[in-house]
């Protein structure tokens, strides 16, 4: 009878804990979701650097930050990665991303000799970082402000640190907000929801495919299996004898 009562009590506690958990999430979902957006933004205040690099994509926002920094005398040149030609470019439906970026910079008053296109036919943040690595090896003292959109900056920083190694100390990130998406209410619009969920998916894929993460995950899984096995053997022995 005592055991039965104990089990009932434990079940009640479990149900209560679940209810409290769900209520907390219900009440705090807004701060949690805002925190998720804030966490992705690792941008720093703009400050002088030798070059400002505009990451491909986000053409409606990112180039204008680079122009603003150039005009404020914070950098002497703009870097961008050469981008891969996709089927839409091949069909003649749209120019390549790096070509549009150069066009924007020229239209906003940046001189052609201030624009440096890093070779490499980039198609991802990883290949953008590889393109910059080569440039940084050739310019061993140069500091670089990397401009990207707020939601993209954490993954970018993670990638650049891995690719650049010690040279990553010479780069910092400056972020621009995404048009029509407020980080305080991103889940309320389609573009916000798609952008942030996709970014988290990419982050999981990037971090999950990293060698260090894979090794750490294997170690954790093996440790859990060993502990479970030990517990199983111990309890079986105890029951048997």
């Amino acid at each position: 009878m005592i055991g039965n009562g104990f089990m009932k009590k434990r079940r009640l506690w479990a149900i209560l804990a679940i209810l409290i958990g769900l209520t907390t999430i219900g009440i705090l979902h807004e701060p949690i979701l805002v925190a998720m957006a804030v966490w992705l933004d690792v941008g720093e205040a703009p400050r002088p650097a030798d070059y400002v690099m505009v990451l491909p994509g986000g053409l409606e926002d990112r180039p204008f930050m680079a122009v603003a920094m150039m005009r404020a005398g914070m950098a002497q040149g703009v870097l961008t990665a050469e981008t891969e030609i996709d089927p839409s470019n091949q069909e003649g439906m749209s120019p390549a991303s790096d070509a549009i970026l150069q066009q924007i910079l020229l239209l906003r008053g940046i001189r052609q000799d201030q624009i440096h296109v890093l070779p490499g036919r980039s198609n991802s943040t990883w290949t953008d970082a590889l393109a910059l690595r080569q440039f940084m090896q050739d310019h061993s003292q140069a500091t670089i402000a990397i401009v990207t959109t707020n939601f993209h900056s954490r993954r970018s920083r993670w990638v650049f640190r891995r690719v650049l190694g010690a040279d990553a100390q010479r780069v910092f990130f400056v972020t621009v907000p995404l048009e029509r998406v407020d980080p305080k209410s991103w889940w309320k619009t389609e573009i916000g929801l798609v952008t942030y969920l996709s970014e988290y998916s990419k982050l999981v894929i990037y971090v999950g495919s990293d060698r260090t993460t894979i090794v750490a995950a294997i170690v954790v899984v093996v440790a859990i299996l060993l502990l479970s096995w030990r517990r199983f053997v111990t309890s079986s022995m105890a029951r048997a004898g």
Partner: protein
Amino acid sequence: MMRGRWRDFLRRSLSVSQATPANERDSKSVADEGRRRLWRYRIGFALVLILLVVLFGISPYSALILVVKPVSSRSDAVFVSNPDCGQCYRTVVDRWKSHETNRVLLWMDEHRRLVLLGAVVPIEERARQKLERDGVAPDAIKLLPGESRCEWDTARILVAWLKENRDKRVRVFCNLLDSRRWTMIFDRVVDDSSRSRVTVEGVTDPRYDETNWWRDRTGIKTYFFSLFRLSYAYWRGEDQMPDVDWSPDAFESTVLESRR
């Protein structure tokens, strides 16, 4: 030696799990163990269920829910709903050349920053140039009135044309993995009497399709985008797009200040 130890261990384990004599254990502990086992089964079942859902989510077959296969029917006109779908325009040219259609409908996208700045040509103009370059007769191309700020607007522009052309049927081309979402948008925007005159056809990207999307970077990206957008369109429907006043000078000065 080892084998003997294992056999001994297994025998002892089995003797516990198979026989639980009442004279060795009191009824209280047996009942407790039964309950614990029941909870273990429940938790196990829930975990297996979650695992199955996750596996389906990342399995190749999950892309099938994003795709709708078109019914074969005659179409008087064709319409490309994804403006950036280069392959869609190629398909339009093929259909026009094979006389499967005699009218190509274009629509005007909202002129956003890059168009206003003059950095890119409006998409409808690029589409017209592409079609004419590939051999579609200029008088077969018609730009529909109205400006679209979102996909629902695009569907409404087509609805207006359908109202003016009550005997015409139209085939809408879009990215393959977006075909379910476009079908849903047309289901909601087009009234029942006209719906049968609209056929959505997904066009396969040369790099991937619904059976091998995970092998291509763009395929993976498109898959997740399409999945999230379909879910949003299903649960929330259409967004209200806010007006954005924009001038490059004002933007450049505020964007710098806002990050300081």
